[in-house]
C-alpha cells in the first residue's frame, strides 16, 4: 500500500484511518490563529458509510487504500441494497444505500456505472459530474411569469424531484449534478 501526504488529497482519495478504509469526501485547508497549516477532512467509512471529521497536519503522511474501478450494470434494488453486475465476469456486487449517498436518486436501471471495488467489496460509485435524465412529469410554467429566478419542480425518470427553471418541459432531457441534486442545464 502506498503512502501519500495531505497535499495529494482529492475528493476521491481512499485512505486508511485508524486501521479502517475511508473515502475523503471533503477536504479543506485551515490555518488556525497561530502555528502551521492543517487539512480538515470529512471521511466516509467504506464499511459503514458513516461520515466523520478529522483534521490532519499539513504534510502528514497517510496510507492510501487501493480501490479499483470496474464497469458494472445496475440490475435492481432490494430494500436498501443496490445490486450491480460486472458484465464481463458476471460477478454480482451489492452496495448499501448509505454508501451511495445522494446518488441513489439518479440511478437508472440497466445503465452501466463505474463501481469502486476494495478487496472484492463494492464500496461506492464514481459518479459523473453531470447525469442526463428525462423529465417525465412537469407542469406548465405559470404564463406571464417572467420574474427572473422563478422555478418549478419536475420529476425525472428515476423518480427524483428536481427544481428547474420554468422553461423546462415534459419529455426534455436535463443535466443534474448528482452530488447536490441541482439542475445544471437542458441537455
Amino acid at each position, binding site marked *: 500500500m502506498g503512502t501519500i501526504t495531505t497535499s495529494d488529497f482529492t475528493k476521491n482519495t481512499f485512505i486508511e484511518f485508524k486501521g479502517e478504509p475511508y473515502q475523503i469526501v471533503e477536504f479543506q485547508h485551515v*490555518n488556525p490563529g497561530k502555528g*502551521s497549516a492543517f487539512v480538515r477532512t470529512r471521511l466516509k467509512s467504506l464499511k459503514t458509510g458513516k461520515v466523520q471529521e478529522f483534521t490532519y497536519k499539513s504534510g502528514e503522511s497517510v496510507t492510501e487504500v487501493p480501490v479499483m474501478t470496474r464497469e458494472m450494470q445496475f440490475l435492481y434494488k432490494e430494500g436498501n441494497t443496490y445490486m450491480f453486475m460486472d458484465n464481463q465476469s458476471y460477478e454480482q456486487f451489492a452496495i448499501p444505500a448509505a454508501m451511495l449517498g445522494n446518488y441513489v436518486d439518479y440511478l437508472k436501471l440497466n445503465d452501466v456505472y463505474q463501481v469502486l471495488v476494495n478487496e472484492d467489496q463494492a464500496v461506492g460509485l464514481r459518479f459523473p459530474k453531470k447525469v442526463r435524465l428525462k423529465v417525465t412529469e412537469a407542469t406548465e410554467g405559470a404564463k406571464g411569469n417572467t420574474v427572473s429566478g422563478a422555478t418549478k419542480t419536475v420529476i425525472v425518470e428515476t423518480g427524483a424531484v428536481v427544481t428547474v427553471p420554468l422553461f423546462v418541459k415534459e419529455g426534455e432531457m436535463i443535466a443534474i449534478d448528482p452530488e447536490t441534486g441541482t439542475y445544471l442545464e437542458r441537455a
Partner: protein
Amino acid sequence: MVVYPVPSGSYRRNFGDYLSCVRRPRIRTKEILSQAKPMKTWQKLHDHPELWERYFIREKVIRSIRSFFEKENFHEIETPILIPHPPAESYLDVFETTLLDRTRRPTPAYLSTSPEVPLKKLMVAGLGNCYAITKSFRNTETQSATHNPEFTILEWYRVGADYFDIMKDCERLLRLLAPSITYQGHKVDLVAPWERITVAEAFQIYAHVDFDEFFEHAPQIAKKKGYAVEKKTTWEEIYNQIFLNEIGPYIGQGRPTIVYEFPSVMAALAKKKASDPRFAERFEFYIAGLELGDAYSELTDPVEQEERFKKESTELKRLGKTTYDYDHDFIEALKVGLPACAGIAVGVDRLVMLLADVTNIADVLFFPTGEGFDII
C-alpha cells in the same frame, strides 16, 4: 441600463440569437447563463435577485460596527495596506510586491496582514481608543471555506484596559448586531454572559488532557490518542491538532464561547500573565465552531518585544521560510511608550457568514478571490 453577458463558445458564433436575447431578455439570458461554466456571483445575482439580501448583510454589519464605536468615542483610523515590513509572525505567508521610485529603483513592499502595528504607533503618539476596518491579505489561504486571501478585518484597542474589558466589548458589539442567530439550524443566544473557559479547562473538559502534563509530554499524549507524531512535529502543531479535532468543533454551541489564557509561546504580541508566565493574556471567541476574534492585553515592553521578533525570525529560518527584517520603527515607538491597552482582531467576513447563515466565506463576498482567479 442592463448589461447582458457576452456569452462564450458556441453562442458567440450565432450573433443573431444574441441580439434576440436583448429583445426578450429574461428567459434568453437565463438559458445563456445555464450554459456557462460556474456562474460568477454577479451572474447569480442577476439571475436570482433574492440573493441580494444575503450580500447586503455586510453593509448592515459594517454600519453597526461604526455606530457602536462612535458611541464609545473611538477614533476610526485608516491604516496603510502597502507596507515596508511584514509582521514577524512565522506562520503567515505575505504578499510581496515592489515599490518603484521615479527612476524605477525597486524597494520590496508587502500587503498588510493586520492594522495592528500602525494603530499601536498612533497610540504611542497619544491617539487613545481607536479602531480600523480594513482589508488585510494573507497568501496561500485559498481553497478554504473560512479564509479568503483578501479579507476584511476589524481591530480595536482600548487604552487602560485588559483582555477582560475586550471580552465585554465583544459581548456588547455582537448583541448590537443581533440578540440571537440561527446558524445551520442551531440557535445561538448572543446575549451576555458568554461562556468563558481557559485553554487548560477546554483541554481538560473536551480532550481529557491535563495541561500541566501537556506542557511536558505533548508528543506522548498525542501518540496515545492516535495522532501521527514525527521528530519534526512541534508542540504547537500537536496543540493545534488536538484543539481542531477535539475542542474547536464543539464550542460556541448555544451561546458564544470565549477561550482564554493561551500558552505564551502562541502569543507573539500579548502580555504574559503575571501569576503564571507560561500563559499569556490572550483570548479567542467562537460561535458555532467558527473562530471570530483573537484578543490580547498588549505587550508594551520594547525589550521583550524585540526578543520575541528575533525568536520568530529564528523559527522562520528553521521552517525554511523567507525571513524578513522586523519593523524597527515599531520597537522605537514602544521605547517611547505604548500605554497599557488591550485589543482584538475580528474577522468581519465571518461575522457576516454567521448572520447570513452560510458555511462558505465565498457566499458573502461579491468577488471571492477563488472565483476571480478561477482557482476554486
